């Protein structure tokens, strides 16, 4: 089992996300994360899906995705040079005094930004690969994580190559 990263180009139409997500659920594939947005071509969207499975399962995932009429292209970039990023917003309990300073220090080390300061909380914004966010989250747990939102992974190939133009 391995986490695979798929970059899926789809028609920018209503209902497409539901078709894609529905295919995963009804065939019993496990989505780890899914992020979707418009892309460089206005009539298309790009979905980044990370999915857990062995090679045989992944083969099925890709083939079943390709069968959807609104799916234009499926690229498995797991084994290709790519960069992956995820954004998380983390609201941490941070009372004035020592814990607040410690949280700020940790944020600094992780290159997270503090984007809101409340009387008893800080909100951190962090960008990185999912493992980095996991690590930060783990560290912050001891101070009390009040709320955590993650966007899901987005990924892009390194260099000149694109998932649309190969």
């Amino acid at each position: 089992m391995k986490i695979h990263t798929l970059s899926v180009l789809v028609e920018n139409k209503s209902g497409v996300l539901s078709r894609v997500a529905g295919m995963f659920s009804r065939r019993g594939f496990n989505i780890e994360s899914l992020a979707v947005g418009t892309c460089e071509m206005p009539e298309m969207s790009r979905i980044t899906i990370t999915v857990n499975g062995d090679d045989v399962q992944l083969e099925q995932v890709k083939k079943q995705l390709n069968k959807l009429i609104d799916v234009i292209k499926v690229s498995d970039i797991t084994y290709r040079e790519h960069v992956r990023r995820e954004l998380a917003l983390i609201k941490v309990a941070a009372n004035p005094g020592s814990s607040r300073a410690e949280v700020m220090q940790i944020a600094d080390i992780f290159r997270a930004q503090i984007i809101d300061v409340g009387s008893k909380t800080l909100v951190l914004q962090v960008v990185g690969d999912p493992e980095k966010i996991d690590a930060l989250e783990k560290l912050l747990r001891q101070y009390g994580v009040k709320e955590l939102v993650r966007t899901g992974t987005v990924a892009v190939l390194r260099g000149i190559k694109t998932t649309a133009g190969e």
Partner: protein
Amino acid sequence: MKTGAKILVEGLLKQGVTTIFGYPGGVVLPIYDELYDSPLQHILVRHEQAAAHAADGYARASGKTGVCLATSGPGACNLVTGIATAYMDSVPMVALTGQVPTAMLGNDAFQESDITGITMPITKHSYLVKKAEDIDSTLGEAFHIAGTGRQGPVLIDLPKDVVTNVAPDPGPQAAISLRGYHPTFKGNLRQIEKAIALISEAERPVIYAGGGVIASDASAELIRLAEQTLIPVTTTLMGIGAIPGDHPLNLGMLGMHGTRYANYAVTECDLLLAIGARFDDRVTGRIQSFAPNARIIHIDIDPAEIGKNKQIDVPIVGDSKMVLSCILDRISSQKARTAWNEKIGNWKAQHPLSIPDDGLLRPQLVIKTLSDLLNGEGVIVSEVGQNQMWTAQQFCFKHPRTWITSGGLGTMGYGLPAAMGAHFARPDLPVFDIAGDGSIQMNIQEFGTVAQYDIPVKVVILNNMYLGMVRQWQELFYDRRYSYTELPSVDFVGIAKAYGIDGMRVDSADGVREALTSAIDTDGPFVLDFRIHREENVFPMVPAGAAINEMIGGQNK
């Protein structure tokens, strides 16, 4: 300018549609008003599920795309089983549903249901049309998607305002171009060469042909390949008719209720050539034990089927007819495989599908007699259950598209409406619906449609006053505890007569031939109620989870 309804009806005619099956309702009234003056033939069914099954039967018998029409909400929902049936068996269908006006969408309006959402897992694609201008192009895309590649049902949901609004006359159908849809028809040449090499090397090859051979009209190519290479052919339930039942190379059906010789041959083969078949669990039994010593070549138009259930040595994505033609062009004469063909001949002689000659009214006798009387000519539709398996085993099908049955979904109630549809596709052929007393009661209201249009469907009810296949499982695996599978006696002839259809009840084996002959000789519809031996089973049988050579029953009779 034209109304959406007019554009729709004219669009159907442009697609070559001649007959549709449907049921009116509130939001589709504008469409029905347009149908009133149209040359399009509309058949009024008694339940929307029957409209979908009829469109499906029409499609399977003709090879063309079947069309059904229902209103919003309950009407659309009633199509669901029929759409799922078509999806599982890859049948080209366009299902048209009415929808509440766009302004009311999502408001839980009267007779509103999210039918595109409901049917998403059981359609090849679906559309919710938002503008009258889009109707014609949507129809074009829908027929293109339904009828090409791996065929399947496409749903078009039409809000009421979209069919009442006006739009410019769309003119002739524009060419279809869909960025995300490019089915592969031609097989990869390198893979084909590899397949030919494996065929030439094989000592004990078997062809395993499925519904894809019928769908791509590849029957002639299949027979030529088998004859040229002397490779025996076993077919799935969906592949029956691809090679004549009495062809010397035909091993009949394989799998759960397949012949012993087909299942033995597949178990012992060293090469399995799968064509348009999907390694369904009813075929393979325990998958690890399916063709355990064979290299496998798999030809399929749907890449997702290749390697889905079983590891494949040579995958060939493409249309069966085109791939087989390409193989035939390149394959040279084959070595004789005398030992293998002798072995298969011995199995055939040892384990024939035979019918006990004990004077009891056996269902197999009914099917066998019908087969003899029709000489295998005619369209045979079945319901689901024992009736279906006995027909698959005993009827000697001579041609593709003459055996119509719900294989993948196993839909009880399919047969009668599908037989109605098949009649409109093939009015030149006699159409029989082989039914059980359980299945026929799932859509028995269609006697009304049969009578109204005088559809000459002959309904053969194999009546054992049980849900026979379920009872068989209870007998074999649940210690004969017949939990809720016994059905009371029903006067089917009386029901038929109430609808204005003629019929006859048969209680003994002596009456079988005469009764079937009178049904064949009747011009209109006819219902035959055969009171068969109640505890007859379908044998051979592979118990669920067993290997296909581990059959019970049906040996050395």
